[in-house]
């Protein structure tokens, strides 16, 4: 009791409500008694006239309200007693009929759940395997059919406790309430010695109305709680089979858990509330008397005469004894409401699950739904807010609903964030199909994709079907695209007369400019020759030769252009066709792109996780094997045995060790160690070799390890990515992602992607880091085993980037000897074809013994000649590893 009183004492709501009511009453009291004060006497004349009429009118209006609220209170109290006594909860028609339907549905769902378990067991989805779920499922299959009885027992237990208290106050019917709320004193005059004026009557009636409104609110709230409790117990009993289904099948449990927790809370709330009702009715009067007289000291308007009662105004309700009883009763009931709510929450927690904020808000909102209906909006609103502030119980239905919606939005957001996180994992998971989802947009897009019906569709129709559809739609976009390309190429090959003149003129201008430079440089060269500066003269003569060649090229181009001129009608026709075809391409894209997107297959998180784990286990088995040849042999064995995880682990290991070229040289020798070899290897292990592959090497078909094409390309993409870090640039950028799927890159895309990537490092860093597998690839003749080296486009791009005076000057310092050696055989041809355009800034002795300004080729030759002893020999000497580490060289 002390704890309870302490709670009441601490309850700001109760104190605030009571204090507000008291202050309000005394203020009005002051006003009414002002007439007896000399200061107010001056206004008496006014009151005698118009004031009297107003006071009378207000009195009548307030009186009418008093009658209405009084009747309402009587009705509410009677219903409250009846509802509190109601105990036949589970035998109503709604429960009986509703429960049977839900029970039957649950029984039917067992078939579905058994199917899910069967599939999960086949697919090795541990979460839903028979071992894990079946025992619980069988037990719950029995309990579901007894769910109404089990819930009924729990409700009966709660009702027995509740009715113990209800019987304590229900015996006298509503009379108890009327007495405790002092309703009979509201319209009674206290009979003291104060004057009775028209305004004091008005004030007494209005304060009586206010007291009645407060009483009505409290009773209505209690009634609402008890009514909603019964209704919710019906609902939960109807849904009780689902609760047991939830215990057996985890996906359903997320929803049924809330039902179970809320049900427990409702069981606890009833007895707790009944206890406080009983407590208020049985002890309020005694408690009030203990407060003693003189607790209320009247203000200026109060009357305290000797041992007489202190009263505020003429209404007996506002005499100290009655008013104390009134406020103690109201206070106890409000405290009861608060404690009942809190006890319910605690009981829910004890039941093992706790009670979430959303549930309590929902419950409170539902239970207190009637509060706005009272009409006394201002006062009710104020009281409702204070109760909400103090107890957390919101009596304001619209606000409670809004909070509920916000809470739901929060939960949804949390779930969405979790999904996003998962989508992020998918995106970052290593360049496979998972990347496809997120890489095509934000992680949110990926999440949207996996949470739509598409996933279900894929499960029904299969990824292959979707892949087929996607290809079909892709063709519909590409067909007009190809035609457009043909037209554009045709257009690029012809010129109108006007275009011809324009292009001819621009070339003639360049020829003339070159001519002027030739004249000027010839004079300069002659001067240098005369001065004995032969090197400068030679350089100038070289430049003059270059300019003359440029002139010849331009003249030849003009001649070519002449052959391209066609009639203006032809040009107009081509332009018109191109415009029309462009429109068709756009229209096709608009129509089919959404369909392509719709058919992007989904990603299977569990499968991917299991795959990563399996590959990780395989990788740990081979982590100490450094011998590339041995790893390649193991890879061949794994391919033959179609052990996909092992294939992935070994391929990744060889790539991480910078030995992936060993795979391609051995398994796809004709395509070589670059990106084309990698693509051919991936096609081979996924059984998607083309005719060209098989024509070049028929034995490739033996490499089919049963990979899905996307799965295999995912592996290729991972290897290509890792090759960036080992500077095997020719074996990078083998795959790109389009419409959420991996695709092979072509030569152009490969060169563009790789050069963009290594370009960001800068020419100097590249010169230092590049090796032979950055610049080109090895190709092996399967018949003779003879290995050759080819310079690739990425190598040419790198050479271009170094073809500047600064890089040339630093090349001896930067380039590795090994790289230089592999480039030497190509230099002559490159020089012959004028590939190198620049010379270094410092004069030096060149490789042919002459003195001059070196070009890039000269510097590479010098670097290659610097290599006196091969590193691999030294290394072998130090490690005595039998395998020649650089034997592939």
């Amino acid at each position, binding site marked *: 009791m002390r704890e309870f009183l302490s709670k009441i004492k601490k309850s700001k709501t109760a104190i605030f409500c009571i204090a507000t009511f008291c202050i309000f009453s005394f203020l009005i009291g002051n006003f009414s008694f002002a007439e007896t004060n000399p200061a107010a006497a001056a206004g008496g004349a006014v009151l005698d006239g118009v004031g009297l009429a107003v006071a009378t009118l207000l009195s009548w209006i307030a009186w009418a309200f008093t009658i209405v609220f009084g009747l309402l209170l009587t009705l509410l109290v009677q219903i409250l007693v009846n509802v509190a006594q109601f105990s036949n909860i589970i035998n109503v028609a709604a429960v009986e009929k509703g429960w049977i339907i839900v029970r039957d549905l649950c029984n039917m769902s067992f078939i579905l759940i058994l199917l899910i378990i069967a599939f999960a067991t086949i697919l090795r989805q541990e979460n839903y395997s028979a071992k894990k779920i079946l025992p619980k499922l069988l037990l719950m299959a029995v309990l579901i059919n007894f769910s109404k009885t089990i819930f009924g027992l729990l409700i009966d237990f709660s009702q027995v406790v509740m009715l113990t208290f209800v019987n304590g106050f229900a015996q006298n019917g509503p009379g108890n309430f009327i007495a405790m709320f002092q309703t009979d004193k509201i319209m009674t005059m206290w009979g003291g010695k104060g004057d009775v004026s028209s305004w004091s009557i008005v004030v007494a009636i209005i304060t009586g109305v206010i007291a009645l409104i407060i009483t009505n609110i409290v009773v209505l709230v209690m009634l609402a709680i008890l009514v909603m409790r019964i209704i919710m117990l019906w609902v939960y009993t109807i849904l009780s089979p689902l609760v047991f289904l939830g215990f057996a099948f985890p996906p359903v449990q997320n929803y049924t858990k809330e039902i179970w927790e809320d049900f427990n809370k409702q069981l606890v709330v009833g007895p707790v509330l009944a206890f406080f009702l009983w407590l208020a009715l049985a002890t309020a009067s005694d408690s009030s008397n203990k407060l003693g007289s003189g607790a209320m000291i009247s203000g200026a308007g109060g009357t305290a005469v000797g041992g007489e009662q202190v009263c505020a105004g003429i209404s007996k309700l506002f005499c100290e004894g009655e008013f104390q009883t009134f406020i103690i009763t109201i206070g106890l009931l409000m405290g009861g409401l608060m404690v009942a709510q809190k006890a319910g929450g605690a009981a829910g927690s004890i039941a093992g699950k706790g009670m979430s904020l959303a549930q309590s808000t929902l419950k409170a909102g539902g239970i207190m739904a009637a509060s706005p209906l009272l009409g006394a909006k201002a006062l009710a609103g104020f009281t409702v807010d204070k109760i909400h502030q103090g107890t957390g119980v919101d009596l304001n239905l619209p606000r409670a609903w809004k909070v509920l919606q916000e809470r739901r939005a929060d939960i949804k957001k949390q779930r969405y964030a979790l999904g996003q996180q998962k989508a*992020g*994992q998918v*995106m*970052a*998971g290593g360049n496979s199909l998972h990347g496809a989802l*997120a*890489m*095509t947009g934000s992680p949110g897009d990926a999440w949207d994709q996996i949470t739509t019906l598409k996933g279900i569709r894929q499960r029904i129709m299969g990824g292959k079907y979707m892949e087929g559809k996607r290809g079909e739609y892709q063709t519909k976009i590409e067909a007009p695209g190809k035609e457009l390309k043909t037209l554009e190429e045709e257009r690029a090959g012809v010129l109108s007369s006007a275009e011809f003149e324009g292009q001819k003129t621009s070339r003639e201008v360049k020829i003339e400019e070159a001519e002027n430079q030739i004249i000027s440089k010839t004079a300069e060269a002659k001067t240098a020759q005369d001065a004995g500066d032969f090197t400068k003269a030679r350089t100038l003569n070289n430049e003059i030769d270059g300019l003359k060649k440029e002139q010849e090229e331009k003249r030849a181009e003009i001649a070519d252009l002449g052959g391209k001129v066609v009639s203006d009608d032809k040009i107009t026709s081509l332009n018109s066709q191109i415009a029309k075809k462009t429109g068709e391409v756009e229209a096709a894209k608009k129509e089919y792109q959404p369909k392509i997107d719709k058919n992007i297959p989904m990603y299977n998180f569990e499968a991917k996780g299991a795959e990563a784990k399996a590959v*990780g286990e395989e*990788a740990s088995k081979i982590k100490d094997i*450094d011998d590339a040849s*041995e790893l390649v042999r193991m890879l061949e064995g794994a391919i033959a045995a179609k052990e996909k995880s092992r294939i992935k682990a070994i391929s990744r290991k060889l790539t991480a060790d*910078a030995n992936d070229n060993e795979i391609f040289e051995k398994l796809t020798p004709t395509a070589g160690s670059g990106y084309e070899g990698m693509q051919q290897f991936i096609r081979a292990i996924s059984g998607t070799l083309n005719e060209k592959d098989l024509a070049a090497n028929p034995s490739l078909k033996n490499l089919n390890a049963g990979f899905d094409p996307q799965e295999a390309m995912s592996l290729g*993409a*991972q290897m290509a*990515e*890792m090759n960036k*870090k*080992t500077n095997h640039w020719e074996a990078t950028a083998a*795959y*790109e*992602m*389009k419409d959420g799927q991996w*695709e092979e890159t072509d030569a152009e*895309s490969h060169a*563009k*992607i790789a050069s*963009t990537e290594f370009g960001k490092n800068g020419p100097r860093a590249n010169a230092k880091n590049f090796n032979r597998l950055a610049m*080109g690839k090895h*190709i092996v*003749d399967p018949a003779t085993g003879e*290995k*050759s*080296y*080819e*310079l*690739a*486009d990425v190598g*040419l*791009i790198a050479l*271009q980037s170094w073809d500047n005076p600064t890089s040339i000057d630093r090349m001896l310092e930067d380039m590795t000897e090994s790289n230089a*050696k*592999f480039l*030497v*055989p*190509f230099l002559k041809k*490159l020089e012959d*074809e004028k*590939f190198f355009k620049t010379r270094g800034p410092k004069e030096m002795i060149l490789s042919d013994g002459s003195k001059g300004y070196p070009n890039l080729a000269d510097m590479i030759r010098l670097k290659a000649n610097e290599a006196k002893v*091969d*590193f691999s*020999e*030294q*290394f072998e000497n*130090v*490690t*005595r*590893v*039998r395998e020649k*580490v650089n034997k592939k060289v």
Partner: protein
Amino acid sequence: MEISNNTTKNQTIKNIGIANRLFDDDYLESLKKVFDIIVRNNDVKHAQILLKVLVAAMAVRKSELEANKEINDFYKKIVIKLKFIALPLLDDEDIIDLVKNYFVWQFRLPDYDIMEKLSTKLLNILALEDRDKLKAGLKREILNNREMITSRAEIRTVAGWLKNYISKLGLGIADNLKRTQYLVDLTKIKGLDEHYIKRLKTLFNFYESLKFSSLTPLGFDEETPIVIDEKLYIFRRGELEPVGEVKIRQTTASAPAANKNEVQESEALRQMVSQYPVGSLERKAVEEEIAKLKTGGGSKKIGR
């Protein structure tokens, strides 16, 4: 499995062979040369092989090495540096140990880029969760590093600097502007040399990089090419970077030309072979040169 067992056996025999030579002067000399080449070429693969061999050999002669402090220190230094070079191929525990106890040693290696090494290591790990585990381990342990990263300063240790950094910028992902301001303040207020500022920048960048989860776009280690509306992009650290056009100068030199000089070079090498005894290192080197020229010259042309 048989193959693996044989490999282990062979490796053990080799290790014993090297262990016998650990104190030989000529071996030390050769090792220095090889080590220099590995460092100069940033050769991860050979660094790892050499590392394994040395660690195993040192274990065989542990007690003798402990008695000879000079030689022991020599090998210890080599091993730590090799670990830095071979970082992408090390186990997680070894990397964490390296960062916890030897982080400052990286500054003894020219042009060493620890961020690039870590990025490569992360790419080698397939499961993203495992990448995050490594990052978390590094982030935790670097705070226990007691090595001196700066001298003549109020704060000297790695842990001390990181704590100072965290106290100023917080534990979360640091704002770039605040980081820049912090580094500027170091120069002005603490009066640190540029040399030390550079070291601290490396330390703070490394620490910051560990804060990004691989499960987020910003911490995503792969840089994937992606085609959107027929345009090519690279998805890098949460952003799509357009891929530019490339113009390659016209040439037909994708396959090497067998020119006169190279033929002459080959002939000269053949003559050199006879000058050296069979089985000598020099002879092997020259023979390999000839082999390379031969294979290089026999290529077929592939049109561009």
